[in-house]
């Protein structure tokens, strides 16, 4: 810190190199901050829980071929019976959708059927009394459906169920100061009321996109089995049996009835695959940003090493003179580290402003969140350290320049 003024004076005589390094640090900081922020946001999405016990879970999406929508009821019943008896199966349900499936129903939940705007949107899972055990969802209040409450109905003929189970998140939205248990709510805009008979701790909606973030854990379970040519089976295997039933369950279903199809890439999936597919682009973007960050930091470090090495080479004689005039090795090392620190500080100041500017622009363009200052601070520290690390090798080389260098003629 002793020599800041003469360093600044000397830098003024090397404007181009100084500006280039500062600019590179600034741009790198701006991009790395935003990239890290994107990574954190995406990773944050990836790690959201579904509320289910995700191990030992198999999902099969089934489409009937050439069966009237009203006539699939007995086929589904027969499938369920066979699946529940299959060796290695703990339990199984038929449902219209499940967490992270990608497609499903959402409805507006209201206190009052005449209310114009619903309190919240919520995903509907039409299931039976085996749902909680199959999904591994935790009931924290009330009771499960009884088997006599389950009704079979064609999809387009579904009317709001008299009994429903909802998630705690939805309950909290509906009744912030109490529990929704036992209360009456409206899940459609008809005057048909539903009574909340149970509350589960957590269940996620079928969608993973940002548009559903406002109600991502608002789910209503209805005691209904929908008939129609399209539906899903969720199957919980006994521990260690997942691989076995992934092979046997589809075969069993085809044996049961040949006129069905499973879609190519989303037909038969372990829940691990479901999760991977749902968050593919989130994970991909996080990965891409990570790679770009790493490459950027490497390139910037290499650039600093390159330019500083050049400077050291250019100033060998001057370093020799300084040594002859009494500079210790430490003084020379300190000179180059301080010089880099000064350039780095200029760079990060510009870079921090740029990072915030870019983020503000992205907020308007891509519905992104505002950049947290923690990231800017972390980026600033990281880049200053990177600069010091990168300059270390050339600076050490400079400190080893012999004072004899001063006497050599050019």
């Amino acid at each position, binding site marked *: 810190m002793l020599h800041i003024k003469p360093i600044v004076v000397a830098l003024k005589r090397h404007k181009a190199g100084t500006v280039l390094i500062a600019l590179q640090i600034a741009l790198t900081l701006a991009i790395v901050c935003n990239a890290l922020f994107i990574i954190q946001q995406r990773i944050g999405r990836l790690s959201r829980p579904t509320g289910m016990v995700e191990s030992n879970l198999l999902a099969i999406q089934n489409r009937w071929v050439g069966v009237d929508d009203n006539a699939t009821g007995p086929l589904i019943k027969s499938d369920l019976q066979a699946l529940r008896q299959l060796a290695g199966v703990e339990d199984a349900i038929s449902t219209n959708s499940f967490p992270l499936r990608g497609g499903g129903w959402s409805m507006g939940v209201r206190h009052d059927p005449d209310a114009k705007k619903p309190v919240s949107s919520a995903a509907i899972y039409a299931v039976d009394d085996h749902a909680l055990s199959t999904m591994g969802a935790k009931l924290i209040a009330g009771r499960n459906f009884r088997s006599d409450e389950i009704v079979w109905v064609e999809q387009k003929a579904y009317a709001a169920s008299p009994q429903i189970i909802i998630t705690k998140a939805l309950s909290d939205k509906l009744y912030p100061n109490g529990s929704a248990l036992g209360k009456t709510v409206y899940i459609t805009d008809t005057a048909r009321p539903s009574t909340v008979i149970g509350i589960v701790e957590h269940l996620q909606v079928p969608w993973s996109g940002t548009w559903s973030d406002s109600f991502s854990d608002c789910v209503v379970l209805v005691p209904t089995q929908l008939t129609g040519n399209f539906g899903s089976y969720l199957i919980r295997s006994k521990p260690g049996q997942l691989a076995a039933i992934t092979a046997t369950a589809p075969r069993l279903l085809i044996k049961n009835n040949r006129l069905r199809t499973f879609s190519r890439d989303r037909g038969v999936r372990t829940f691990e695959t479901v999760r991977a597919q749902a968050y593919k682009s989130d994970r991909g973007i996080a990965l891409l940003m990570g790679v770009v960050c790493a490459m950027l930091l490497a390139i910037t470090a290499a650039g600093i090493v390159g330019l500083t090495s050049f400077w050291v080479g250019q100033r060998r004689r001057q370093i020799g003179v300084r040594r002859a005039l*009494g500079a210790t090795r430490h*003084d020379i090392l300190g000179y180059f580290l301080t010089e880099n620190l000064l350039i780095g500080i200029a760079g990060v100041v510009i870079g921090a402003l740029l990072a915030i500017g870019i983020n503000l622009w992205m907020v308007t363009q891509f519905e992104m969140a505002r950049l947290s200052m923690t990231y800017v601070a972390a980026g600033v520290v990281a880049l200053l350290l990177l600069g010091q690390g990168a300059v270390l090798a050339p600076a050490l080389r400079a400190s080893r320049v*012999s004072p004899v260098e001063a006497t050599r003629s050019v």
Partner: protein
Amino acid sequence: MLKMTHLSKVYRTEVVETYALRDFNIDVKEGEFVAVTGPSGSGKTTFLTIAGLLETFSGGEYHLDGIEVSNLNDNARSKIRNEKIGFIFQAFNLIPDLNVFDNIEVPLRYRGMKAAERKQRIMDSLERVGLASRAKHYPAELSGGQQQRVAIARALAGSPRLLLADEPTGNLDTQMARSVLELLEDIHREGATIVMVTHDPELAARAQRNVHIIDGQVVDLSEDPRFHTVHAEHTGTTA
């Protein structure tokens, strides 16, 4: 002040060992003005770099101002250079990025001197060499003679016990060389010890004492017949 006994300096490469100095003995007393002369490659520059602690030596002893320097580490050597020695180089060696004032300040900064004292000393030494008005100029804006006078001011600013000059007029024309030499003589009269390396006999003649080096050893000029031939070779070649 500066005493070398049986000093040797060997440059080793994979194939050969070259003695730059061999059984080298010299004793410079405080307040002396000594000129070290000798032909190219005789070892006079090596002598100067070792005397100035710019390089280490291979054997023998070197006492500088009473201190045996062979066992000192790099930091201690830097400190001695900084406090006891002032350098004047043939190529001036001003730092081109710094102006005159900042150049003279360099050794004072390394000494950790307070800003006020630094300023006082810089102005005094600039005054001494007659360039006080050029403090804000950059080296490239000065003539060769002016640059060398700035270099002398830089050497003087730290009040060194010993001034080492390496062909101080080698890059200057006759007129400027004369004025620089007069400056050195002034400094000497004020009590400084000066060791000057040169191959210019005219310059050497201005010193109190001449030490002649040939093949890495000090030779007695009056007894060595080679001196005369060497001298003849070098008269008139000042390049």
